[in-house]
Each structure stands twice: as structure tokens, then as C-alpha cells.
């Protein structure tokens, strides 16, 4: 499967106990953002992120690869950087009530569904409504149709996804964690849409 090819450097996930990384202030050039992943279980949320984190080859960037928390910094063309701290959430129905604990304070929400599963698209719409009701109003939201490589099994048209996203003023993209299609584009596009603190 697209997700289990290679294993990340096991030391990269180690928390450096006393470093001051976390207290590093966010300035206009270097943003640190909390990104929360929502979506039904099995849509490939974690695969998308793993693809993204492993796909960056900048040796200077610090990455954290855990099973459910990952961080990765990307450099943009305008020589700014964005460090994504990616919070995965459990997609099973029985944990739905816990989601607000995770998206509280997030600057970005990525809602994922599987293009071969209409139920997961329904679930994605549920999450969008939840975020609109309870999330912070300036949160950047993206709707992602994953498993785009499984075209022959498609049950949610890209038209439906796009229309829904437009109606809800979200960024829309279809990805394949398996082939890595559009994975980097997803995160770069999010980075561009982030509100920038006024530069001093």
C-alpha cells in the first residue's frame, strides 16, 4: 500500500527535552501552524501526511514523524518558511465528540474523504459543518478527495467535491497518497493561503 513503503528515521520523532524550539517566536518570515486532519477512518489521512513529510528532501528542515503527530517545514518561493504541525484525529464514529479538543486553536483544517466512498464524502461534509460552527472563524480549510489513483472505482465526482468546497469557501484538491499526486501542491496551496502577521 502507498503508506507502508519505507520507515522514517526513528530518531527524528524524538522530543528534544529542553530545546527552545517550541518557544521560538513566529515571525513574519517563519510561520508555525497547527494543522488538524479530519475525515472518516480509512480515507488515508495519515498516508497523505506521511507522503508529504517523507517527500521533502531539504536536509536542513527538522521533521518529526510519529504515527499520528508529524511536523514538517516547507520553504516557499518568497523565502519564507512554514512549519506545519500536523495533528491527526481518529476518524471512527465513536470518537466524533472528541474532535473539538483537537481542532481548538488550529489555523488549518484539512478534511479528507475517499473518492471511492460516498459515505466518507458525507462524513467530510459533517466535519465542515462542525468546523464552521465551532472552529475559529479565520481557519484555513481544505477539502481533499483522496485515492484519486482509483479512478475506475470513483463514486464521488470531482465536480461534486469542487462545488461543495466552493460553496463553503474551501480550497479543493484531489490527491493520491499512493502515487504522491498533488500532495505537495496541497500543502503549498495551504501555505499560500495562511494569513501573514504584519511584517515589521
Amino acid at each position: 500500500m502507498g503508506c507502508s513503503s519505507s520507515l522514517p528515521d526513528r530518531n527524528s520523532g524524538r522530543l528534544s527535552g529542553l530545546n527552545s524550539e517550541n518557544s521560538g517566536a513566529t515571525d513574519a518570515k517563519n510561520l508555525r501552524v497547527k494543522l488538524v486532519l479530519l475525515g472518516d477512518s480509512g480515507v488515508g489521512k495519515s498516508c497523505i501526511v506521511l507522503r508529504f513529510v517523507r517527500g521533502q528532501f531539504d536536509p536542513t528542515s527538522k521533521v518529526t514523524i510519529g504515527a499520528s503527530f508529524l511536523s514538517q517545514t516547507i520553504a516557499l518561493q518568497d523565502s519564507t518558511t512554514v512549519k506545519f504541525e500536523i495533528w491527526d484525529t481518529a476518524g471512527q464514529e465513536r470518537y466524533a465528540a472528541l474532535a473539538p479538543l483537537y481542532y481548538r486553536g488550529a489555523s488549518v483544517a484539512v478534511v479528507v474523504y475517499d473518492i471511492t466512498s460516498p459515505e466518507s464524502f458525507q462524513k467530510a461534509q459533517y466535519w465542515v459543518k462542525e468546523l464552521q460552527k465551532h472552529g475559529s472563524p479565520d481557519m484555513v480549510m481544505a477539502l481533499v478527495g483522496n485515492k484519486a489513483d482509483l479512478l475506475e472505482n470513483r463514486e464521488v465526482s470531482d465536480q461534486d467535491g469542487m462545488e461543495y468546497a466552493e460553496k463553503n469557501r474551501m480550497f479543493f484538491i484531489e490527491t493520491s497518497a499512493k502515487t504522491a499526486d498533488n500532495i505537495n501542491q496541497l500543502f503549498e496551496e495551504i501555505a499560500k493561503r495562511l494569513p501573514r502577521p504584519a511584517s515589521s
Partner: protein
Amino acid sequence: METATASSSSSPASISFYDFLDRMRNPASLDLVRSIKSFIVSFSFYAPNPESDGKRVQDFFLSMETSIRDHPLWAGASDEEIDCAMEGLEKYVMTKLFSRAFACCPDDLRIDQEIAEKISMLQTFLRPEHLDIPTILRSESSWLLAEKELGKINAHKAPREKLLCIMNCCRVINNLLLNASMSEKHVLAGADDFLPVLIYVTIKANPPQLHSNLKFIQLYRRQAKLTSEAAYYFTNLVSAKSFIVDLHAKSLSIDEIEFEENMQVAKLANKVPDEDPCPTRDGEDGLRRETGVGTFTAMNFKERSNSGLQYSFNNLFELAKMHMIVTGSPYPFMQAEARDLTVGDVERLLRLYKDVVDKYTNLCTAYRHLASSKLESGHFKGSTASCCYEQPETSVSRQREDGADI
């Protein structure tokens, strides 16, 4: 995947704490010491109120950070050194304020108690399949290690060290998940797998004062440090707690009637230890008292009972048999035939009958309780993956630190 981390007693945190104490004992830092002491004293002027207490402490940390940065003793210090000093300060202040700040509302104790009771009921019947945990992730050894880490949370006073216990527990689970995905039989499912395992481990560990510990970390861990990965794992435990508090039959993959029955049985079983503290000990004392079989057997029994519950119960029966041989049966009608009995025996027969039924019922309940709560968690030896961030200090150094003064 076992990446061994050196777990020496002189952990970096410990060193930095002594370094902090040393600098504070330097006459040049008298002004800082004065601020710290007066803050600690001023804290007792106010009635406990978690929100304002938390804010007061956080504000104090921030203002002290500025003072330390500007202080001659830290002239030219790197961010890392300042951070070490702040870790020392947090530990010092929160150790001094611990009894005032930890579980300070009567509600906290009540909630802690309720959660612990609910968990101990769940422990009697909850299985991994009730949370649909995939078979490949059911690793007794990893889970026990994770439970052990989480169980240490109450052994520390400093918010940072309590948080480390959570991080270490989560790290073990994290590695289990990464290992499973490496076997290629299981696609890494991220939080879909992580949270159920954490919930299961939390239930198995039943960490003492879970609610109060989480609240304490939330309020008193320096805010700049409760971010990123630490915040993520912390949030996961908060959400595991919240799931457990709201847990009902529909939260699990279990038949509703089966769930209710199990909870009822567990409720009854959990009452037993309150009434007569330890059934095994009770049995032993009882036998010794009644029979005077002699210390030899009693001690022998006690010694052997350490090797496991199953053994101890076998021994109990053995001992009971011996008891009959030595003292004669306490149930004299065992050898009697119906024609030997008279109406005058009815009273005694009825009394003995009630006695036997009572004993049998108690023993059954106690056994069920012990079997479910102790057998499951009692036999783990050795550890598989030591992949923790840092081992907290030994109890000796902890005591020394608790009493440290500046």
C-alpha cells in the same frame, strides 16, 4: 525498533535543576530569590481558584523569564540555558506549591474517584476487540510498558515530569504502531489506531488521580512548553479521559445487555474490597484464628501466595483441607445420614447452611474481582522497547529535590 535511551539517575533535567539551585544560592541572585519566595508566600493569601491560580503562576513565570534574561548571572546565556533555568524554576515553584495547587477543589477529588471507579469496573471485562483494535497492535509487552510509564504520573510533582510520563507512554504506543506498519501487513492508520490503543492502555493502567494530574499540567506547565508534540499527546490523554468518562454501551463494540450485565457484576465485585479489604488475607487470617494450624502452614501459605493469585487460591484450598484434618470438620453433618437427624438439628443445620452460602458467595465475588483486576496486569516482567524521552529521577533524588531550598 528498540532504541535504548540511557536512563541514568543523573538525567539532564536533574542536572539542570541542581544547576538552578546552585545559581539561586549565589548571593548575586538574591533579588531573584526574594521574588520567588515572596511569590510562593503570596500564593497562600488567596483561596484556591484553579483558573486564577494558573494565570498567576504563568504570569510569574513570564516575568521571571524576563528577569533572568536580564540578570548578570545569566549574562550572555543562550536560549537553551535560559530555558534550563526556567525548567528549574517551574520545578522549584510547583514543588513548593504542590499541596496547595494539586487537586485543590473538593470536586477534583470526587472526579478522580469517579473516574478511577469507572475504570476499575471497565477493567473487569473490557477487551481490545471492544475498541476494534487490530490484532497486530495487541502487544501485551508494549502495552504493559506504556501502562507502566503512565502509572508513574503521580510519582512526580513537577508539571514537566508529569507530562513526560504521558509522553513516554505515548511514545511506546507510537513505536508499536510504526513497527506494525513496517511489517507491511498493516497500513499505518495514524490516529485511527493510536487513540484506541491509548484509551485501552489508560483503562488498564488506571493512573491515579487522572483528572487532577491533567488539570495540573494544563494549568502549571509553562505555556510555551505545552505546544506542538507535547500538546498533541497531552490532548490525546485528555480525550481518552473524556471518552472514558462518557463511555456507555454504544461507545464500544459490545452487546448492550452484555455491557450492562458486566458493569453490574463489576459494581458488586468492586464493593467487596471496601467491606473486607483483601479476601486472600482475610481467608488466611480467618484460618489461622479459627484453627491454630500453626504458623508454619500460615507462613508457608503467605510466602507461596506471592507467586500468583492462582497459586494462592490453590493453596487456600490445600490449607482448608489441612485445616479439616487437623481440627476436625467444622461441618459435622458431612458424614451424617438423613435417618440420623432429629428435629433438634434443624436450627444448627440452617445456621451452617447460611454460613456456607455466605462464604461461597463472598469467595466467588472476591475471586472474580481479583482474577479480573490482578491476574491481567500482574505477570509482566522485563521490558521490550525502551524508547522513552527521558527517565524521571529516582525516588531518592526526588525526595532530595522536594526538600531543596534556596
